[in-house]
């Protein structure tokens, strides 16, 4: 069987119109015999048979065909050859889920497929977030905040690691809890040795940590360093290598909603509000007056200044550093290691290891006194 291809009859067109076949279907034809008249924009062309045999058309008179497409077949026998197979359907994007790249990643992370979305067009990250928000509502964590404070019965001996301003902050919170016995602080700064922070003594350098733990001189520890994420994480790793349980320090004026889940080693400052069903990892420092609203997911080793206002469904990955007075819109995601400058208003995602800069235009002018 020989396929007859419509040649490129002229350069100015892409297809031609079949005016008429000059032979009948099933007719025995000779090589070189005129098969058809094809019309292009410029003229009508005769098409000669490239081969002898029995003729079977694949295009009807009055139809157009693309140049270089198959328009007829010439067979060795007068039996009509089987029609060509329909081209295999291309994989349907719609069926596979028409996700944007970001939406596909977020959906995969949360085990969602296109079937979970009631949408015909492209599914965006916003659609996935909206779907996640819906599914989050009926699925409140069943534990209460108090179950997760991990405070053992009786008096707990707590060692404060570092003895600077952050430790003072921490001690100011911890001393309000009558169930705690503050053993003391460890700090490498020679100037701090023998000092007392609100009555809690600095006992010596950090190298004593391992000894004190081995000797059973404290039950839990907590890290006072609150300025540098890396320092706080390094001290955390050192404690965890020793298997030391870490205390949470939560100011009594803080309000924790239903179903809040805290890890350990967190410092929660005065008048912080943590909304219902929010999860917070380990070793975070949340300064006074922060609002972490409902259904937030915060990681570990996060430091904030005062007054960071996160709205609902905000995700904050590990090691994020916030300045002061920051507002975060619902559903915003902040990648690990990001730094957010004071006064930022976050409307969209912040990628990992990025700095959010804030342009501030503040001018201080002299006040001219009247008279």
């Amino acid at each position, binding site marked *: 069987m020989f396929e007859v291809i419509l040649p490129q009859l002229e*350069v*100015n067109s*892409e297809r031609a*119109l079949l005016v008429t076949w000059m032979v009948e279907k099933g007719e025995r034809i000779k090589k070189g015999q005129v098969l058809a008249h094809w019309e292009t*924009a410029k003229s009508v062309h005769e098409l000669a048979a490239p081969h002898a045999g029995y003729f079977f058309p694949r295009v009807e008179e*009055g*139809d*157009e065909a693309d140049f270089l497409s198959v328009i007829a077949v010439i067979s060795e026998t007068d039996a009509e050859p089987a029609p060509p197979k329909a081209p295999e359907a291309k994989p349907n994007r719609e069926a596979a889920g*028409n996700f*944007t*790249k*970001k*939406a596909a990643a977020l959906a995969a992370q949360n085990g969602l497929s296109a079937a979970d979305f009631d949408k*015909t*067009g*492209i599914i*965006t*990250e*916003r659609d996935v977030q909206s779907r996640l928000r819906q599914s989050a509502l009926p699925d409140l964590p069943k534990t209460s905040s108090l179950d997760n404070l991990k405070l053992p019965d009786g008096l707990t001996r707590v060692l404060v690691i570092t003895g600077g301003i952050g430790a003072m902050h921490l001690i100011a919170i911890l001393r309000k809890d009558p169930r705690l016995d503050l053993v003391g602080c460890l700090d490498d700064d020679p100037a701090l040795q023998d000092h007392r922070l609100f009555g809690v003594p600095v006992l010596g350098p950090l190298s004593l940590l391992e000894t004190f733990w081995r000797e059973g001189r404290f039950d839990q520890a907590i890290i006072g360093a609150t300025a540098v994420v890396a320092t706080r994480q390094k001290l955390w790793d050192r404690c965890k290598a020793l298997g030391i349980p870490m205390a949470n320090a939560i100011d009594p004026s803080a309000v924790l909603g239903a179903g809040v889940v805290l890890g350990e080693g967190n410092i929660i400052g005065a008048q912080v509000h943590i909304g219902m069903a929010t999860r917070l990892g380990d070793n975070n420092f949340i300064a006074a007056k922060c609002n972490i609203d409902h259904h937030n997911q915060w990681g570990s080793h996060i430091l904030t200044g005062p007054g960071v206002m996160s709205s609902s469904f905000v995700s904050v990955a590990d090691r994020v550093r916030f300045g002061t007075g920051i507002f975060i819109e619902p559903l915003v995601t902040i990648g690990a290691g990001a730094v957010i400058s004071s006064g930022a208003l976050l409307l969209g995602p912040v990628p990992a290891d990025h700095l959010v800069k804030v342009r501030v235009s503040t001018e201080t002018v002299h006040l001219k006194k009247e008279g």
Partner: protein
Amino acid sequence: MKPQERLLVHHINRALTRIMGEDERVLMIGEDLLDPYGGAFKVTKGLSTQFPQRVHTTPISEAAIVGVATGAALRGMRPVCEIMFGDFLGLAFDQILNHATKYPLMYAQEVGCPITIRTPMGGRRGYGPTHSQSLEKFFVGIPGLEVTALHRFQPVEAFYRRAILQRDQPSLIIENKIMYGQEPLDTVARYGDFQVRRHGQDVVDAELSLTDFAHEEVTLITYGGMTDHCLEAARRLLLDEEIASNVLVLGRLSPVQLEATAAACARTGRVLIAEEGTGAWGIGSEWAAQLTDALWGKLKAPIQRVACTAPVLPNSRALEEQVLPSTDTIIQAVQTLMSRT
């Protein structure tokens, strides 16, 4: 319906057939219009058979085509001129500038000159430097001339009926060569993943969005043959970078009426204008100037323009693709817009 009857060229042909059938004042004047040839792009095929007294094939003189049409229009006819390629329109420039458009203006609109000039523009067919250009920018500055560009979302018959029968001043209609071979989308409310809405009557602006006309960050404005490139750019920007845009396909190039466009742009504050002709003193220049005025204080970045980057179009299809604005150049310009915010 035969496959070729679904194409835009057939819809234009059918619209012209109906309009000629309705009104005996309508004439067709141009080169090689008579059957069986029916015009270089077959837009007028069959008209000379159906209306033999009213389809006039002419010698090769565009000045004569428009000049004769102007005279006929002054005498009460409603002639339609076909300029075989838009590239030849320069030969009729004086007739348009100093004659056809002047009569209504000089006689305070008491004298009408209802001629319609239709012509195909645009490249991507490998027709070379003098058969591939988009020269409409040289005509949009002529006072008294309305310049419109057909697009696939435009209801075809209303568009031609308005120019030919309902206006008393000269009209220039830009058709796109590639579009002749595409199917019209004149009634669709969805096109692929895009939602389509239309603004205006007879001459329609189409607005398309992948995100329910919400949350868009960029507005892409174009006309005629650049439409598909803008839509593909919008699609890729959303899929790859989650940048949502609305695409505005304008039907009227001149006189500029951008109120609805400005309102759509105000939603995003970032505007890109794409045209196929060369950019300097282009369609986008005037649109950008007027939009900057209308959107002052609402723009987040300077309006970007993409256009043909070469002074002359190459014959080679591959080289042509490199200099004509493409999906890639539009995406790059959007990235510039986003980074300058």
